[in-house]
């Protein structure tokens, strides 16, 4: 009673009609301006890449004219690359390394995450933390010691080196995403399956994998990106043309000394960027659902 009496004596500020609406509109405008700015910044390079890939070498080197507009669009750069045996080889190498990396990483990550999050054995907590800690070591710090290990294994200048190395980069993060996702699945679900008569492998295959599909897709996309976009390790460990992947092959094949075949470089980049873009576009919803499930569960 006394509190309300005191409050009654104070001057009550007059509510501003529509102030909430105004604030909301301003926040919205600010968001649009900021987002538009960043979208432009991020889209300029791919836009420039695509228009350059559609130009002839003469048009690219011409001083006159607007460099943001294609005068005589041509697919010659693309055609030339597609019919180039070396480029085909790089593409196949990238596909092979990526496919094996994704398969290997996801198999290890799913099995590890299932056992770490569900089987509750002694030391599972310490191991979970350990797995995540390995993700924090920058890959660029490791390439010299790894070179020695690969040399000892006789895998220098072999795509097998990448098949062995990329999972070491992808598995920790994929396992971490999967632990988060599996932890969000109620414990009663595996208990119900146990009572229904399922073994642990059956629980994993018949219950966990279908239920955790968004998480698996998110982790798969990550593993794919690690292998497909890697530049440092292929550059360091592969030196012959028949073993190179796309990222390194583009540089090796299309930059000769100080001569840059810009049209073809850009066309090769566009083609190399296509698979991840296509995958992200179709699986974006799953990707976000998978990442957020892992994130919120902590």
């Amino acid at each position: 009673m006394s509190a309300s009496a005191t409050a009654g004596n104070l001057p009550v500020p007059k509510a501003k009609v529509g102030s909430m609406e105004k604030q909301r509109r301003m926040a919205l405008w600010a968001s649009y301006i900021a987002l538009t700015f960043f979208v432009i910044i991020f889209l300029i390079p791919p836009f420039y890449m695509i228009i350059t890939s559609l130009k002839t070498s003469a048009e690219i080197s011409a001083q006159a004219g607007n460099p943001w507009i294609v005068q005589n669009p041509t697919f010659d750069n693309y055609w030339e690359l597609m019919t180039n045996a070396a480029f085909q080889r790089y593409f196949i190498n990238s596909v092979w390394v990526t496919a094996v990396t994704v398969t290997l990483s996801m198999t290890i990550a799913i099995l590890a995450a299932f056992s770490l999050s569900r089987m509750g054995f002694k030391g599972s907590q310490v191991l979970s933390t350990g797995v995540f800690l390995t993700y924090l070591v920058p890959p660029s710090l490791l390439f010299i010691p790894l070179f020695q290990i690969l040399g000892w294994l006789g895998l220098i200048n072999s795509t097998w080196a990448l098949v062995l190395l990329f999972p070491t980069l992808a598995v920790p993060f994929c396992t971490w995403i999967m632990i988060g996702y599996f932890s969000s699945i109620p414990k009663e679900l595996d208990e119900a399956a146990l009572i229904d008569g399922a073994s642990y492998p059956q629980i994993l295959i018949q219950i966990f994998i279908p239920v955790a599909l968004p998480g698996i897709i998110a982790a798969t996309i990550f593993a794919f990106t690690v292998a497909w976009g890697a530049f440092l390790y292929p550059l360091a460990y592969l030196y012959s043309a028949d073993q190179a992947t796309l990222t390194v092959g583009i540089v090796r094949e299309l930059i000769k000394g100080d001569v840059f075949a810009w049209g073809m470089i850009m066309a090769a980049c566009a083609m190399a960027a296509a698979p991840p873009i296509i995958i992200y576009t179709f699986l974006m919803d799953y990707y976000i659902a998978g990442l957020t499930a892992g994130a919120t569960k902590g």
Partner: protein
Amino acid sequence: MANVSIRKVVKAYEGDVQAVKGIDLEIIDHEFVVLVGPSGCGKSTTLRMIAGLEEITAGEIWIGGDVVNDVPPRDRDIAMVFQNYALYPHMSVFDNMAFGLKLRKFPKEEIKRRVDEAATMLDIQMLLDRKPKALSGGQRQRVAMGRAVVRNPKVFLFDEPLSNLDAKLRVQMRTEIKKLHQLVPTTTVYVTHDQIEAMTLADRVVVMNHGVIEQVGAPQELYHHPATRFVAGFIGSPAMNFLPCQVIDDGGLKVQLADGTKMAIPAARVDRYGPYKGKKMTLGIRPEHMTETHDSEKPGVQIMNAKVDVVEPMGMETLVHHFVDGVAVCSRIDPNVQTGPGEILPLAIDMNNMHLIEDATNRVV
């Protein structure tokens, strides 16, 4: 169908925390036993040990004549219904119910026959193609029960299956579970913290507290003859009233409350309560035995004036809260009796239904 026998079972966690402290319980074939108690009393742990989801620290659990301590859940021939239903979200209702049978390699026709039969029994035939997310809470719980029924197990285990449902649906599903047990009289162990659920469903109720069994008995037996202060207070809603008192001999055996009020002990109980003369005791009296005064002529009924604090009309009855010697007390009176806060209401206390609890042991004497 089988007997379940729990012998000296202990469950201890790291750091020597004992969730279950050496309990013994014999559950006979076809019986519906409800484990009830407050949170942390060990009821769910006991159920999970029967299911094989928790390891047993000491003691033995027998199902159908075999010790199952080291038998994995899938080989115990039990089925369990969980609080949050635990339906497989990516499978249809049919596949959810058929999952256990498929894993046990039942022929397809047999699976279909059993699922259809259970679905008809639970009235979910029209839902067989749906996914769990397209079902209401009650329907999900039926599917969870269906998944248990199709297996035709030796024992059904229910872990607070109605806790996630709203009040109305809970009452409805309670009846469904009882009906189901009448149709399929499989030995059932049911865990709940809701004593009304326990009373309405059980053949026998097991009241647990702090990891021990306080009392086992038929619902009416627990209600009318509680063995301990805990059971007396836990069973019954609103709870039994407890008033500190002393047994005195004042020209006849009486209980004397702290404020000096004396109430005669009925003749039939004099021999039983005589030995407790002079000891610190607690008088236990249920709200329905402290009611309006129309029964005051009955032998053993005492009149007490109560200053009404709060009135709660419930429709079929009215609850009146008041204080006796500083202790909050609830009385259950006829809804037609007009009273309000601050008014003096004469109450008839039926001492024929009194309970006397020894403070030193907390046992009802």
